[in-house]
């Protein structure tokens, strides 16, 4: 149940970041990586 919302969320986030100024900056990249790490931790923890 977590996978599809995360996938939709990160897709929308990248589209929004890109749409605003046609660039994805370092801080936005760091935010994406943070979201991915959090998702991995939560997903694995919930499964165990």
């Amino acid at each position, binding site marked *: 149940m977590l*996978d*599809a919302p*995360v*996938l*939709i969320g*990160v*897709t*929308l986030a*990248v*589209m929004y970041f*890109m*749409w605003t100024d*046609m*660039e*994805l*900056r*370092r801080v*936005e*990249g*760091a*935010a*994406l*990586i943070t*979201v*991915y790490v959090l*998702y*991995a931790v939560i*997903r*694995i923890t919930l*499964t*165990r």
Partner: protein
Amino acid sequence: MSIIILLLLFAVSLIGVIKSADIFVDRIVDIGRALGISQIILGVTVAAAGTSLPEFGSAVISVLTGNPDLGVGVVIGSNIWNIAGIIGISAILSCAVTTNRDEIRRDGLFGLLSILILTLFMFMGPVGPLTGLVLIALYGVYLWILIKKQRGYYSSHLMDHGEVDVKTVIYAITGFLGLVVFCRILVYSAVGIAEVMNVPEMIIGLFALAIGTSLAELVVAVNSAMKHMCSLSLGDRPW
């Protein structure tokens, strides 16, 4: 089988899958060019589908060998990793990943639409042939739009025609067979690891297989980011 042997098998088969896919795609392009297949079709299909061949192969083999969770895990996990992980790493390593509004509209909307359709069908029940047909149709529309867009580029960049030699065909067949065999070993070792570590197959698919099969994209993205060819990192992202 011990976990060390399984991990070793996983690593070796992963390298084998990526290398086989690379050989297969290269030779198919050579053969297609020699047979006079349009450069537009070759360029678009190889760019769009060629880089995802390891994910595609391991997902198909997973489903065919009775491990659908692993297959679904690879597909969804690869998408999340490609968008959040690879694009994120590219942005951190480079100046900034750039794009244009046309790419966001086309690639972003098609990516989003395919996820929404898949999610909708998953909520309605088991994913069946109808879902597959709808998604393949959507992908066909996406390819058609890409081909239309690329027509101008290829008409102004004429490419040389080659000849199909036996060596190229043998390489293509070897690449394809290698892809199938290594994908089978990869799935076998992934299922083994899941059993030994008592982890659901879905988790192995979502993370280990998804990140592993996207290693080639990661290398391309990191290289292009280090050379400040930022838009290449986004273009490599297979929506």
